[in-house]
């Protein structure tokens, strides 16, 4: 799969920009604040229906404007796909595929698979479980519409159940049948999600190990361990056991929404004991493993977005990463942003990579063929 061209209108600091990309490597160079990340986020938004960095659609409108528009032409298995994402203050969000608006945005997820690596992603290793659940969810949603629909349903049931527990406490009443009416749906959806996550995490581990060794030349054994209360106990028993706690705290204390994905190196938690270098290598290996898993499942090369990650990596790791993305047949179109061109261009020449260079200056792009 590849993105052939993109047109940005009033998006972030871009007034009106039209860019054609090359099917291999696209190098986006510019100073901090020039708009490199905005360009990558626009590409991400066309595939995922929302910003990678959790910006609201309104925040992505250029100052003094009241709408933005992103249009992209993709080539998916030799078929062209025209995607248009518009957001205006009055008419809100509209997402179109080949000039037809989607009824539900969830129908778009998975059509254009992609993986992004950004500097702040290191929080995946260092911070709490919420970010790791989000990575699980966004990855699995790209692969299975069943997962996405089940997840939406689970979250809705959970919201209702929590509201109900709160009302029970406030009104000092308790209706076991009513709670059970929600529990049956929570159980069915929760078990499906657990199954999906378990399968995915197990299948990812060998890929993770392989990429970690390649990136870091490290000999440690790394893995992601799926921590879920559902691993030991059936969900129905779990809800029954936690009933008193749930009623007391007025929310559902255990379930899929509390899962974690613990990253380990030689059996120790990477979050606590990993060095900075190990954590960074792990993060890159994790994302590449996710990339490769999507490729294996879909038999289609996702787009890879590398946002400004080279400031934090040493020359050896950068070289290994770029050698992989340019010589492994699983990898297709890549977008890389960096503050300077020289070090990456030197590597591209060494690896004989065909690339196209874009210089971004304050929302204005100059192209070098």
């Amino acid at each position: 799969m590849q993105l052939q061209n993109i047109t940005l209108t009033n998006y972030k600091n871009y007034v009106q920009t039209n860019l054609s990309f090359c099917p291999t490597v696209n190098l986006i160079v510019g100073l901090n604040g020039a708009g490199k990340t905005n360009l990558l986020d626009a590409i991400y938004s066309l595939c995922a229906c929302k910003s990678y960095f959790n910006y609201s659609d309104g925040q992505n409108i250029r100052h003094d404007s009241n709408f933005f528009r992103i249009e992209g032409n993709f080539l998916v298995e030799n078929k062209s796909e025209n995607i248009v994402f518009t957001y205006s203050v009055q008419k809100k969000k509209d997402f179109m595929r080949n000039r037809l608006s989607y009824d539900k945005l969830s129908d778009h997820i998975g059509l254009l698979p992609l993986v992004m690596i950004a500097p702040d992603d290191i929080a995946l290793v260092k911070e709490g479980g919420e970010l790791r659940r989000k990575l699980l969810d966004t990855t699995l949603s790209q692969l299975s519409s069943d997962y996405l629909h089940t997840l939406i349903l689970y979250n809705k049931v959970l919201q209702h159940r929590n509201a109900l527990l709160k009302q029970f406490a406030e009104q000092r009443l308790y209706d076991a049948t009513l709670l059970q009416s929600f529990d049956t749906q929570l159980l069915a959806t929760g078990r499906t999600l657990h199954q999906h996550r378990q399968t995915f995490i197990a299948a990812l581990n060998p890929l993770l190990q392989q990429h970690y060794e390649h990136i870091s030349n490290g000999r440690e054994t790394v893995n992601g361990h799926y921590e879920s209360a559902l691993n030991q106990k059936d969900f129905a028993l779990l809800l029954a056991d936690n009933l008193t706690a749930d009623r007391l705290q007025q929310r559902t204390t255990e379930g899929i929404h509390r899962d974690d994905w613990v990253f380990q190196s030689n059996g120790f938690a990477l979050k606590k004991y990993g060095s900075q270098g190990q954590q960074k290598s792990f993060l890159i290996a994790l994302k590449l493993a996710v990339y490769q898993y999507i490729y294996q499942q879909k038999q289609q090369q996702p787009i890879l977005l590398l946002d400004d990650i080279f400031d934090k990596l040493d020359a050896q790791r950068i070289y290994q990463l770029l050698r992989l993305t340019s010589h492994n047949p699983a990898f297709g179109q890549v977008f890389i942003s960096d503050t300077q061109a020289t070090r990456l261009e030197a590597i591209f020449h060494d690896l004989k990579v065909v690339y196209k260079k874009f210089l971004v200056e304050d929302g204005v792009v100059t192209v070098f063929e």
Partner: protein
Amino acid sequence: MNFPSKLVEDAVNEFAKLPGIGKKTALRLALYLLSQPADNTQNFTTAVSRMRSDIRFCDNCHNIADGDLCGICSNALRDHSTVCVVENLRDVIAIENTEQYRGVFHVLGGVISPIDGIGPEQLRIDSLLEKVKQGTVKEIIMAISPTMEGDTTIFYISRKLQEFNQSIKITSIARGVAFGNELEYVDELTLARSIASRLPYESYMTAK
């Protein structure tokens, strides 16, 4: 919008409160009434205000009625042992328009949704249970929207019914591909469910 008359302005503002009517349509309606004989307006307002003040709700099924019972519940020819449970009045009208249903109804007034503060006590579930306790009802048909909240409501009512009546037949309207639909345009979720709950060929043909 500027009006030469406060009387017209008031009328326009009232019309514009109705769903689907904007200021311009409201003005058109007000001016139309003015162009017609005064009697027409009199008849119109009398009909509307009598509807609002004299309307009754059926003691038995909570459908709209002119007396204690609605036209459906007071009809001896209908099958009072079959009760179709629906969310609102519009659903009653929709099912009646099919001319296929000979039983009676029970209007809940909504579905269970704790986020919106709607629990069983805000709905007419107790009166349904009372009706079944009297022992004449043989089948309950759940004709409730196939949403998460709808499914919860069906589950809740079914459990409550089974607490005191194990023999009652509880059914739900079929879910799946609509008549006249091309399969390729059906959304995946519906299609997946339709395949999971497929029907034997013979029953499918006779059901038509």
